[in-house]
């Protein structure tokens, strides 16, 4: 997994690329999220458009990220969820926990309301 980030309207947008699996991926994302919290950025969007595959550990990483942000008074929302990942979210019923949007704009706006 490769991870890039940028900011738009006070919201951090993370863009992972490739497969989200266990091992170092978990640490990379977790450390990045904690860095954001330290600099008082608590609203994060993860753009999953370029993630082609995710296993159960990958899901665990997203869950842990969501918990981290919510425990710190922020939120983590998903954007551009691919069909494959959406079905994964549906089966696990995580779709009820993660807010997910079709576009980054929608997601950014959702933080404003």
């Amino acid at each position: 997994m490769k991870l890039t980030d940028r900011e738009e309207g006070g919201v951090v947008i993370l863009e992972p690329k490739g497969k989200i699996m266990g091992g170092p991926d978990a640490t990379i994302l977790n450390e990045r999220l904690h860095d954001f919290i330290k600099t008082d950025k608590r609203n994060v969007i993860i753009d999953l458009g370029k993630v082609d595959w995710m296993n159960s550990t990958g899901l665990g990483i997203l869950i842990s990220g969501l918990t981290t942000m919510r425990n710190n008074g922020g939120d983590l929302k998903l954007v551009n969820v691919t069909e494959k990942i959406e079905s994964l979210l549906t089966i696990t019923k995580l779709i009820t926990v993660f807010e997910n949007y079709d576009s980054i704009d929608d997601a950014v706006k959702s933080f404003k309301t």
Partner: protein
Amino acid sequence: MLNIILSIVFALSGAVLVLLSIIILRENYRGRVNRVTAMMLFFAGIAPVLATVYYAIVLPSGRELPLWVYNLSYIWELFFPSLLLFSAIFPVENSFFKRRPRLFYAAFIPHIVHIIIVVFFADPDKFFSTLKMTSDAPIIGVLLEYLSYVFIPFAVLFSLALEFHVRFFSLVNLFYVIVALVLLYQGAKSVINPRIKKQVKLISYGIRISVGLYAVAYIIPQVFDYDLNVQIRYSLIIIGLLGGPGFIAWAIMKHRFLDIRLIVRQSLVYSLASAIVIGFYLVFINRFGRFLNSVLGETAAILEVAVILIALLFFQPLLNLIDKLLRKGLIKGSADFRVVLENFSRRIITLLEFDKLIKEILRTFKEDMLIENTLVCIPGSKGQCAVYSPFELRPAPHKKDRVLESFLIVREAPVTADDLPTPALSAETRALFKDNETEIIIPLISSHRLMGYIALGKKASGMAYNTEDLSMFRVLANQIVVAISNARLYIESLERQRYEEELALARNIQQQLLPDIIPSNERLQFTAFSEPSREVGGDYYDFITSTAGNQLVFCIGDASGKGVPASLLVARMQAILHSISQADIGIQDKIAHVNNVLFRSGMPESFITFFYGELNQDNMLFKYCNAGHNYPILLRENGECEYLKDGGLILGAFGGATYISGEVGLYPGDLLICFTDGITEAMNPSDEEFGDKRLEDLILRNRNLPLPQLQTKILDNVKEHCSGRPFEDDCTLLLMKVLPLS
């Protein structure tokens, strides 16, 4: 004839000592031990050389030299103060002299005065005649005459002193030698190193022999006015002189390999070998020539040439042979660095225990290479560096010094302390190196990674490290790296073995979590298969028969991740489930309870997808709750597929989640297929999943097969899809068939 051979042997031996002295000085001309040893060997060597010059050149030429020129040869007696100084600083510096450095050089005063006297006042009579001053000038002449009367008593006293001096100065020398021996013994007492002890012993033997010979040849005749044949006396002194320093030279070579370069040893061997061969050659030619003369008379001249030619032919091989023998006896001792290297590598390669290996490394540097204060530093995890020292049983922890480590990686080869970027090093490192009196640091590098480093203190001899030492350390470092790698691999293999044993145990425990008996009766048939991708896995299925009688509980689950962490989660899950499954509460509340307990005890990123069902065998009503698990497929008799989705979130990730339960009636011919994602996400070589669709089609096509065959069919198909590769994920398949009423 004897004279010639003796002269040659003496001259050569003397020359070797002088040569050795020059090389020792060149080795490190600033070093005190070097200077004093060189001086001692030089004065010891100069005497036989001067004697040979006299016997071989001056005497045959028949020329008379002035007496003071002969007396100049007395400078060899400076050997005695040099010996005294040597013993004052070797093997350890005497504290008395250390506190009084000037006194150190004052030891030379008596001898220098002595030489001045014997050179300038070589001829007392001549000296007196110059005192008898006369002058033609009337007044001055009278004055001078009176003055000379004044001088005469002094002159007489002086001549008496001179007489006494010449006779008894040898006693001063004797005194020096005795003091030297005492100092040497005192120094040896404070030495722990067995090799240096041996060395000192050898040196003291040499000095005792030479002092004995000197006493017999010189002191006894001088003091007791006894006349000894000049030649015998001379030979005794020279043998004595060669003996003492010879023993010292031998001791240096035998027990201290670091301080003498290979070239020196070779040249030494060569000179000695040549001396012996030339001596032998001369004797042989001479005797053989005389023999031929007596037998053949006048024709011998031609034959003599032939003999010389033959002798020359044999000369080189003979020289080689002697060279080889000498080398074997003299150089290839336990102290030779090649021998040390050889023994060292033989010993350490077989040492697989890390601590023992480090001890052997420390021992080699201390005992074989005579380096005091060796430290072996092995950086470990968590910013720590273990420092092993020969004086401590356990390594002392130190903070890692990144600057030092990256410096050593760049330099790769052994470095001297002067080359270190000392100001940039951490205070702890600087203190460590200071205490250790570190002079050399040897990095241990394996494929650009620093495995550790060795900090060497001073040599026990006090001599400085030279380039030969550094290149040898380089070779040593490579061998140590190999040995440490081997020891580490061994430790790893031991750990892996233990880990595997533990895993096998864990696997056994996990197997016992799975039900032993798969229930079956006249109405229901089950098959179950579960295989972890690793030794232990995170898949789980279970059957719980209700104590109430007609209730059958079964479930399937999949913990996130793989291996040991997942299996621990499953074990916990099973415990919670068994404690709650018999409770008289709704199925959704049981699952919510399991979720809450798991959530409280776990981390949010680890979770379980879980399908739980309770079948009432009286009315065949099946209640279930699907907590985020792959939808089980209910294949009806008529070929319709239903997916059992009702439930809620995965377990353990979010506290307080609520669940709903689903309810279906089961009828004869119904087939329920529960599985984990290991089945549907099994990949073929082109990264294509087996998928839900393929599974569904397969079941539809084969639904009339007996249940065990259906299970085999599904698993075979999945395996075929993976092209025989082992499963990447844990795979579990649970099949249930409602049997037709008979």
